[in-house]
């Protein structure tokens, strides 16, 4: 599938921002120092920026508001509704905390549940697509939740460090372990889930399998079209191997190294670890789209 930069930025950043919101809502982080302000502004900023980026892949962003209407049937609509509800509740929670110094645990818990539900809904947009076996047959929701909550916890620790109220290296290691394990688990389960993984072949696509083996003799057009650009994206093997390596190094190894370094030279390096981690997650998310194969390209002779 075509890896649209707007969707990659959106899913990575809003996942991480919502993860951070969930941890804040569950009462993590002290009320002292600059922590509440930095954490709340960052959570809103990251999630909001991701949300705005998502409009970038719409051909008619002026109609984006209509996406709030179909929550009864559509996961994309559910995601939009849940996201707005989470941001609204978080804004109320943060205002009460920052201005009046009270953290209402029930409000926080409901908001945290909504944040988790939003990430789940994002994952289900992809996991529901039977046409893309790599997304529907692999544990996509688990991976999105692992990456979002892990990334959120990593952000929490980085914010604690730069606010001068601690930040635990052990916490960072745990967060990195969760994100990287959920990606490793997903990639292992997704291995070999190509467009024919659920039994769709050019023979079933044309209904000609009873006669014999089918191959494309002549395509309908010599140039490209929307279908080929969007759903027959082909990723070079070299490029994908390099990106996988970049993902592991930037997303896991380097942040881990920086977390260790923080013990020696201080917590100020932890935001750097977070930035590295986000870059690594973007590499993996690029691959999530680029490596996914959709069944309709069978008609164009893609095996």
């Amino acid at each position: 599938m075509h890896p649209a930069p707007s969707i990659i930025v959106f899913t990575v950043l809003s996942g991480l921002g919502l993860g951070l919101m969930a941890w804040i809502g569950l009462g993590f982080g002290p009320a002292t120092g600059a922590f509440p302000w930095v954490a709340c502004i960052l959570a809103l900023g990251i999630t909001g920026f991701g949300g705005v980026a998502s409009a970038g892949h719409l051909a008619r962003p002026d109609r984006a508001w209509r996406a709030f209407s179909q929550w009864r049937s559509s996961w994309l609509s559910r995601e939009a509704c849940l996201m707005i509800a989470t941001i609204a509740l978080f804004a109320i929670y943060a205002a009460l905390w920052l201005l009046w110094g009270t953290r209402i645990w029930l409000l926080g818990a409901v908001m945290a549940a909504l944040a988790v539900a939003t990430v789940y809904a994002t994952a289900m947009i992809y996991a529901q697509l039977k046409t893309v076996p790599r997304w529907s047959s692999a544990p996509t929701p688990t991976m999105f939740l692992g990456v979002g909550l892990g990334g959120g916890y990593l952000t929490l620790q980085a914010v604690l460090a730069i606010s001068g109220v601690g930040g635990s290296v052990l916490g960072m290691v745990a967060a990195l372990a969760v994100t990287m394990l959920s990606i490793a688990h997903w990639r292992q389960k997704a291995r070999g889930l190509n467009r024919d993984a659920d039994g769709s072949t050019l023979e079933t696509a044309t209904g000609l399998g009873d006669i014999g083996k089918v191959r494309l003799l002549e395509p309908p057009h010599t140039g490209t079209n929307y279908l080929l650009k969007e759903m027959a994206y082909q990723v070079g093997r070299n490029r994908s191997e390099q990106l996988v390596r970049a993902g592991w190094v930037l997303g896991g190894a380097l942040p881990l190294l920086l977390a260790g370094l923080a013990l020696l030279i201080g917590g100020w390096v932890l935001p750097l670890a977070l930035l590295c981690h986000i870059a690594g997650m973007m590499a993996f998310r690029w691959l999530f789209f680029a490596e996914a194969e959709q069944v309709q390209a069978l008609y164009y002779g893609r095996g």
Partner: protein
Amino acid sequence: MTTLPESTEKKLGLVIDLDICVGCHACAVSCKEWNTGGYGAPLSDQDPYGEDPTGTWLNRIHTYEVQPEDAPAQIVHFPRSCLHCEDAPCVTVCPTGASYKRAEDGIVLVNEDSCMGCGLCAWACPYGARELDAAAGVMKKCTLCVDRIYNEHIPEEERKPACVRSCPAGARHFGDLGDPDSDVSKLVAERGGVDLMPEQGTKPVNQYLPPRPKDSMDTPPLNLADMAEPAPSGMLGWLDKALERLG
């Protein structure tokens, strides 16, 4: 709401005869011609006369080679368009309510005033039946020529989808596949019409009629070379044999 109707009164759709289709693309051209001026936004082309032309089409004609195990390969021309599925995955994924399936006749349509061009319906369709128009930014798909089939301003014989009306070979049929007594249903029953990608669980309404079984030859064909050069007889025959002996 982009939920699917429990059932539809009719199941209007196409029956495409792969035994007859000659791959002339007349259906695709007439589809483009009618629908660029009909329902909704035009079917735009980008760089149509340049180096890299692309454009929106609702019907595309592939040509396949089918290789049986013990017989010569067959060529099959294969028109591909929306199948107006009963369990249309493109409809339920739509976040804006633009995509819908009509309860009265089962036609799957896009309300282009509501479409925000997210493309998720095209991702959900196994058949590649939906194309986002690059100029209008809305999703285009086969409407089953909804603006022809009920149109009382055109002669009655024209009230068929443009592709059916224009097919010079009679390979395309239009009718109610929900009515077992309709001509199209009888044709499907008689010829063993098939669903495309049944494993996707979409329950397509459109049906494809597979090519009829080919004859197989029990006796070898006549040797045409021998017929063109009959064995010589008489004096010529004696000479022929004598020369052959000299070798």
